[in-house]
């Protein structure tokens, strides 16, 4: 009925671009590669928006319910008669929204990079990697099969590795890229085992079938997955929790978040794409995709809730103490994703109680715009002052008016000030939390005050505080191509809050009526304003109050500044325990004991042959001796045996 198979072009265009630029770009059309990448992606973006229009407004809805349409599906690898990996495309509200977000933000980043990365030696490679990343991410959200998703999940990981390590001659960039890959890989181990568990019980890898089987209380599959248990936890809970572990890794949830701040070593537009709008929300997407199953198993969903809420708070506290502007943004991302996670966690399936699900994805949607704007703005600032540190900035508002205004809009949006985008989505999240989990609600409320505070601390430190002291040349706000995305995203950050997501994206496909509860929203908005005012008083002009306050917090400030020593704990585990207690002994045992045994065997054989060689001395006297000894021996034997 509905022909959506053209959607396959949306991911295929970027992968074609990747191959073209990756294989030939550097040699033949290096300077053109930016244009090629951008053009190809704008086609993808256009198709995505077309799809969104077609799906949401023309033919996606049947009897008031949004349908899941699968226009394409091919068997890719048949594991067994029932279990196979399929490559396919799913069209439903969730995937269509993600298509729009990914291609749009990616397009903005492509355009921005035209100016930002200009003159780079590996310009073509950069665009090739961007295309690869976009392809992987699109493949991820279009997956019809949990294993297909896992594949693209890994591809996303590696393209992020390549992009973070883009400045590969910088050891810190290489270290950050490695860290990001290995931490997320560790998380993916959980994802993989989770898939194995779920697939074993559901006897399928296909999302649709899997969800249908694992949410039907009468099915034999659910029976087997609930009754078999390990350590008193059912297989279903294990499976879902482990799958969430994969999501937590990509989405930088505590305790797997340690890679995200370091990942800021990559080029800034990359951070805008990967670490703001797309890859880091993959975990949210994953939980949302499997949401009906999570709803069936409350204990796994509770893990999601508390991990999300704790990450939101922890990251916000750390963000208040960081001085590298990109790291502040990184922690802020982590905090906002925590919001999305716990919002999913407090939600239920369907109807009014499914508000959290809608709110989470609404926030994902708005966050994509204002956070990528913040990163691109930060990129613009870094481009100007050639530093990431707050101390090298200040008073930039007059030198870069467009960046200043758009950055301010984004800050207001993330702080949740009406009528900016973040206000609407955060409002729904708080409302959802309020109705189901008071503890999480208060954590979220407190965090939203903190958010406003640290964002405006950042804003004032960059644009106000002290007079700009720019030295050297090349101080301009960047090219036209750098300003355009800022303006577009700024407009989005102002307006996307009015998109009636609740009509489109709900857990059961039926539109939800939401309205802003004015009485309810007074508290969070007041808290946000308080946060902003506090930041204004501390950071608008240079003064010694911030230092005094940090001293007053003492050890706590120090701990937050050092990111609560989580990195150090990991380092200890990896270096002291894994390397010294497992790796080194394994290598030693192999060299000395296992191989030593083999050498010993060879040595004994050689010694034996030496001994027998000695018998063949060629001396007649010794032969005579052996001869007579032999006769004697045989004689004795015969006398006693043949008696």
């Amino acid at each position, binding site marked *: 009925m509905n022909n959506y198979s053209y959607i396959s072009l949306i991911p295929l265009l970027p992968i074609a671009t990747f191959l073209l630029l990756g294989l030939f770009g550097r040699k033949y059309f290096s300077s053109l590669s930016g244009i090629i990448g951008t053009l190809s992606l704008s086609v993808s973006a256009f198709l995505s928006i077309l799809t969104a229009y077609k799906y949401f407004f023309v033919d996606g809805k049947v009897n008031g319910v949004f349908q899941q349409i699968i226009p394409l599906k091919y*068997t*890719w*690898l*048949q*594991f*067994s008669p029932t*279990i196979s990996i399929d490559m396919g495309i799913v069209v439903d509200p969730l995937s269509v929204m993600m298509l729009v977000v990914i291609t749009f933000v990616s397009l903005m980043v492509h355009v921005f990079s035209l100016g930002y990365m200009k003159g780079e030696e590996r310009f073509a490679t950069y665009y090739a990697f961007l295309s690869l990343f976009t392809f992987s991410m699109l493949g991820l959200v279009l997956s019809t099969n949990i*294993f297909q998703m896992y*594949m*693209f999940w*890994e*591809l996303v990981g*590696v393209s992020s590795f390549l992009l973070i*390590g883009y400045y*590969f*001659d910088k*050891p810190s960039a*290489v*270290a950050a*890229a*490695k860290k990001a*890959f*290995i931490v997320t*890989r*560790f998380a993916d*181990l959980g994802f*993989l*085992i989770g898939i*194995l*568990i779920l*697939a*074993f019980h559901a006897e399928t890898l296909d999302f649709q079938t899997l969800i249908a089987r694992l949410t039907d209380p009468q099915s034999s599959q659910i029976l087997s997955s609930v009754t078999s248990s390990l350590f008193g936890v059912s297989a279903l809970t294990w499976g879902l929790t482990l799958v969430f572990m994969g999501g937590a890794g990509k989405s930088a949830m505590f305790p797997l978040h340690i890679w995200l701040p370091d990942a800021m070593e990559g080029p800034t537009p990359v951070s805008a794409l990967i670490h703001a709008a797309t890859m880091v929300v993959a975990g949210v997407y994953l939980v949302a995709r499997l949401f009906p199953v999570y709803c069936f198993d409350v204990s796994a969903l509770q893990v999601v809730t508390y991990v999300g809420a704790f990450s939101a708070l922890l990251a916000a506290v750390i963000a208040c103490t960081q001085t590298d502007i990109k790291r502040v943004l990184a922690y802020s991302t982590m905090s906002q994703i925590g919001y999305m996670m716990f919002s999913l966690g407090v939600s239920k399936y369907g109807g009014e109680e499914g508000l959290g699900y809608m709110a989470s994805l609404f926030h994902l949607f708005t966050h994509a715009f204002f956070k990528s704007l913040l990163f691109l703005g930060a990129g613009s600032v870094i481009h100007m002052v050639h530093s990431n540190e707050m101390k090298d900035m200040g008073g930039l508002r007059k030198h870069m008016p467009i960046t200043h205004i758009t950055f301010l809009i984004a800050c207001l949006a993330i702080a949740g000030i009406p009528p900016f985008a973040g206000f609407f989505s955060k409002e729904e999240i708080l409302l959802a939390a309020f109705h189901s989990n008071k503890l999480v609600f208060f954590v979220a409320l407190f965090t939203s005050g903190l958010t406003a505070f640290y964002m405006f601390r950042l804003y004032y430190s960059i644009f106000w505080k002290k007079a700009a002291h720019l030295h050297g040349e090349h101080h301009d706000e960047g090219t036209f191509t750098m300003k355009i995305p800022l303006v577009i995203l700024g407009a989005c950050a102002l307006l996307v809050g009015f998109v009636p997501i609740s009509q489109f994206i709900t857990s059961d496909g039926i539109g939800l009526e939401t309205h802003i509860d004015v009485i309810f929203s007074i508290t969070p908005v007041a808290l946000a304003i308080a946060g902003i005012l506090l930041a204004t008083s501390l950071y608008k002009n240079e003064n010694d109050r911030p230092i005094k306050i940090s001293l007053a917090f003492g050890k706590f400030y120090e701990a937050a500044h050092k990111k609560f020593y989580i990195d150090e704990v990991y380092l200890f585990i990896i270096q002291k325990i894994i*390397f010294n207690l*497992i*790796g*080194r002994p*394994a*290598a030693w045992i*192999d060299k000395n004991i*296992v*191989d030593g*045994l*083999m050498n010993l065997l*060879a040595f004994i054989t050689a010694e034996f042959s030496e001994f027998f060689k000695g018998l063949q001395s060629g001396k007649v006297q010794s032969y005579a001796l052996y001869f007579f000894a032999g006769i004697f021996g045989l004689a004795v034997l015969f006398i006693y045996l043949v008696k």
Partner: protein
Amino acid sequence: MNLSLLIILPFITAIVILFCNGLKQVRTVALIGSAVQLIMAIMLLIQYWNERAIGNISQMVFEYSCVWFAPLNINFHIGVDGISVAMILLTAFVVIAGVLVSWTMETLNKEFFFLLIFLSMGAYGFFISLDLFTLFFFLEVAVIPKFLLIGIWGSGKKEYSAMKLALMLMGGSALVFVGLSGLYFNTNINGTHSFDVMQISKMHIPLEAQLLFFPFAFVGFGIFTALFPFHTWVPDGHSSAPTAASMFLAGISMKLGGYGCLRVATYLMPDAAHAYSWVIILLATIAIIYGAFATMMQTDLKYINAYSSVSHCGFVLLGIGMLTQTSITGAVLQMVSHGLMTALFFAAIGMIYSRTHTRMVEQLGGLLKVIPFISSVFVIAGLCSLGLPGFSGFVAEMTVFMGSWQNPDTMYRTATILACASIVVTAVYILRAAGKTVMGPITDEHYFHLTDATWNEKLAAIILITGIVAIGVAPFWLNDLVTPGTEQIMQQLAQAISLK
């Protein structure tokens, strides 16, 4: 298709090489010979598909049999199923790549290429043999040249390594021979014994005989494929071998063992395979984990790849030991995948070594800047090794995992989880090696003058990468090729259970 050609052609090539003069003639002949091998392997694949398409459902196709030595009932019996075709393809890919990377071999080039081609003949013969004696004969043909390849053209402590490798593999062969003889003397067809794989598979070998001879055959073949604790020839052997020999060793020879474990040990002694499966799983899991951790501590690129081969070949044994259809298919996929990937890895290491004259990770750095092609090849091999989707390693490993998980026994599940965990360790050591070697700052100013890959090196890399990507992007063809073969093995295993 006449399968004997797979033996005759390399043989002729090897003989012609002996009559050539000078490097240019020798290498041209070797290249033409290996190109013909590749074409034949691909034709074999196509004709095999045709044969299946027109409805040939016999287990083996292109069968041919003639008497070799009547008194002992030894026949030259050859034939292929999907598994053999896959292994033959792998061999052809590695051989041509090996010839290409040895393009500028200076010393004793005639003898070198002769041995390479001769070795490939042994491998083809092994994969097409359906007679245990013929199979053993070709196994030996494939072992002996390696001793010379390492002993003469190797580097480092080459005499020690060559001796160690030859002795351990010979020890393996001896065990295999005991296993095969045991099978032979327990068969009875009209009063005579038989070496014929197809005949033996149709009769039931007494359980006691299976339990007695299975360990000989399995451990014997296992030594070839780095079965713990008999894997120690792998690191020394690989690191001392010249590049092409390393590629052959890891890409082809180690697969002889895996194929033997499957075709001879498991297929012909299914009861014993059930009985001993927990031992296999135990040893394979140790090899996977312990190999991975040992790799982490290595500092020499060749040692890194050699130890990682121990770990990766553990997946082959794990897949076989799990005794499910999917896991055995996975084991075959892993053999093909690992063969291509490790050959590529050794080729890249050889290219780096021939330019920088070092393989020590800490001395290398920033190569991506100066030799981008070779560095990219190195990174691709690494990414394949750590199981990135789009490359063959992912497909093979995931098939093994998926198959292993179908075995619901707790110990087997634990083994599967541990094996899965190894992919994280793999990521650690691959990224450590790649991060230091090709990324980071340039460590030696001599490196600025390095030249990138020559055409022959590029071609070798492209051929291997083509194979890797062909499996990684579209695994269904290989899976469909291999599955009927593994189904036969599964039937055999299923019957064994019912007999119990």
